[in-house]
């Protein structure tokens, strides 16, 4: 793993900053906002989550703006394993998928047997997608083999469910480590690589996402297997969401601009996107009272 090509931090930051200056207006802005909704993993990951909270979130996921059928459903909702059954029930008949965080989320500091069992139980409860965390303790101590083996084991436990591997880039320290972890996760079988749990600061950033996307690009070149990308944590505004789409477009190209290969994990982003869509369509901003708060 130490032979993985390095990343220049200053250069990566500059490239991300220059892409963040793209000016996305009018029809392309509407297109991007629509895509942001379709690629969204609407998330609630709180100790206080209840069946009622999940039910409300599911309703919002299916119909983000009641009375406006032009707004698409989001890609998935993302909940803790114990809430998966509730989500499956409330999403029945819709095309919104259920994603769940397994493997001792968010720290990943537990036994492999427990991580595997948690994954199996979560898939059995009806989750279509598993968001696992890597063992950062093992990664940072240089035990790459262990990180790799864990991902392979969890991937197997997933069966048909899609596996997103969370690198928790805020704990990895350097872009070199982010790139190494990205390559490791993809080699071990990840369907998606994902930036963060949202429980650690900094969470997703543009340069970190750029480094991960470039790793995907190199991996696809070597293996031919496309891997998806998910940015999660701290993405709250439409402007941020559009910046991620620009980064994606100019790094991985339009083939990645689909929920099958790109996700935005967020809990509060959706209403800002809806507000901006309304603004683009009508030319005026609506009060927050016109958007449901679930």
């Amino acid at each position: 793993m130490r032979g993985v090509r390095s990343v220049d931090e200053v250069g990566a930051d500059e490239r991300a900053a220059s892409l963040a200056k793209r000016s996305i207006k009018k029809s392309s802005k509407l297109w991007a906002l629509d895509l942001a909704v379709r690629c969204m993993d609407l998330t609630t990951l709180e100790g206080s989550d209840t069946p009622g909270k999940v039910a409300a979130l599911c309703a919002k996921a299916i119909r983000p703006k009641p009375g406006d059928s032009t707004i698409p459903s989001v890609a998935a909702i993302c909940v803790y394993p114990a809430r998966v059954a509730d989500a499956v029930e409330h999403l029945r008949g819709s095309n919104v998928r259920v994603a769940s965080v397994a493997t001792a989320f968010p720290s990943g500091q537990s036994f492999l047997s427990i991580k595997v069992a948690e994954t199996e139980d979560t898939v059995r409860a009806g989750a279509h997608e598993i968001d696992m965390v890597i063992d950062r303790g093992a990664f940072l101590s240089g035990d790459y083999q262990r990180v790799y083996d864990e991902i392979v084991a969890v991937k197997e436990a997933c069966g048909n469910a899609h596996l997103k591997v969370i690198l928790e880039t805020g704990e990895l320290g350097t872009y070199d480590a982010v790139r190494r972890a990205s390559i490791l996760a993809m080699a071990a079988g990840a369907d998606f690589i994902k930036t963060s749990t949202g429980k650690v600061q900094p969470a997703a950033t543009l340069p970190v996402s750029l480094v991960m996307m470039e790793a995907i690009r190199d991996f696809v070149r070597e293996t031919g297997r496309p891997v998806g990308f998910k940015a999660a944590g701290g993405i709250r505004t439409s402007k941020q969401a559009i910046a991620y789409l620009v980064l994606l477009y100019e790094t991985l190209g339009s083939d990645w601009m689909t929920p099958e290969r790109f996700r935005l994990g967020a809990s509060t982003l959706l209403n800002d996107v809806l507000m901006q869509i309304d603004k683009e369509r009508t030319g005026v901003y609506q009060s927050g009272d016109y958007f449901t708060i679930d």
Partner: protein
Amino acid sequence: MAITKKQSAELAKQVFEYAPAPEAIDHVHIAPSYGLFVGGKMVEPHSKKRFPTINPATEKKLAEVSEADAVDVDRAVKAAGRAFDSWSHLAPSKRARYLFRISRLLQERARELAVVETMDGGKPIKESRDVDIPLSAAHFFYYAGWADKLEWAFPNRKPRPLGVAGQVIPWNFPLLMLAWKIAPALAAGNTVVLKPAETTPLSAMVFAEICMQAELPPGVVNIVTGAGKTGSLLVEHPGVKKVAFTGSTEVGKLIQRALAGTGKKLTLELGGKAANIVFEDAPLDQAVEGIVNGIYFNQGHVCCAGSRLLVQESIAEPLMEKLKRRLSTLRLGDPLDKNTDIGAINSRAQLEKIQGLVESGIEEGAVLYQPECRLPERGFWFPPTLFTNVSQSYRIAREEIFGPVLSVLTFRTPAEAVEKANNTPYGLSAGVWTDKGSRILWMAERLRAGVVWANTFNRFDPTSPFGGYKESGFGREGGIHGLAAYLDLN
């Protein structure tokens, strides 16, 4: 499944095409006709002659500017001479105050200047907005700080100003080159007569307004427009004590010849054919950005452009693939659009020169690559171009193209890289891309270039001296070194 396979396939086909995002131009006032800035005010030219300046992206006329003749140049130099006595004896802290004021006014009028620069020169608005104008203001700000500290800059040397400086600047960074020239000259206590390039005089005309707005004493800055003839009248004028020229090596040689034996101080900043050297351990994705920034920035109209890419053979293939992919994402078009990466070629003459050299490259046997790229119908355009299979002997590897054309060569060892990089009549800049710090230093010691960038390219700062070896000129601009050129230190 969130979406059906069919929907997904359809979506994948959609291209995220950016809608036009043009910078507003309604706040910019360009006069139909400009005089000369002499003695603190705009005056009618004695020559009575004017010539048009056009927008190279549309070929439409923007304004007419004056063509200064011998009488006009003489008037300007005399105005500068009259102003010299009081300006050079002004309390240095007061000189600083004027420079700070100019710097602030450049910042206040930054949007306007960026638009003027882009319309007159063809460069993308994102570059004039984010590079040219902020750096111009930074130069005035930096040299304002030196004005009252000259004795600390050159301890025990009794620095004294020279007199009237005659300055001739090129068309690739009109306002920035103006700032590089005028800011140190004024800080050191000189007065100036500046001649902007004939294809890009407009930002200098706005600068003349700024001088008036700043209430700069009359005659401290004079601006005469015109073509090469006006430039030679200026540098040969006996009232001029110091000549600073940035432009082609050809003209630089003419100036040096004309000035021989006159006792005038001279600095020349001329052409370049910089090597951008990528080692096998380099961070490739960032190196690609550096290569792109090195040669496609400002359509390659950059004297220090990284126009020769030297790649270690072991990584040539993946690097070329990444580079070609990256070229396909460059957005060429309306320079005023905020998303444009490559604007218009500055003039028809320059476009023809680029076309001629590119044809020679094809004839000599290099392999041409250009991404699919639609060029606008009107205006002067050239797509981002790269040549592989280039030999050291080809014209495209030796001559300055001054356009968006990259020649790619390979090397096997660091020693070979140094040898190839130095094998050019020029020596303005070089780039080194490697993860290994010791190799950067090893290379920097051996490269005969005024600037060596490591893991970056085309990075400028007012505090850092800039200038060349060999046919790239002599003297330094920027930093303390830049002040020395405008002072008598004996």
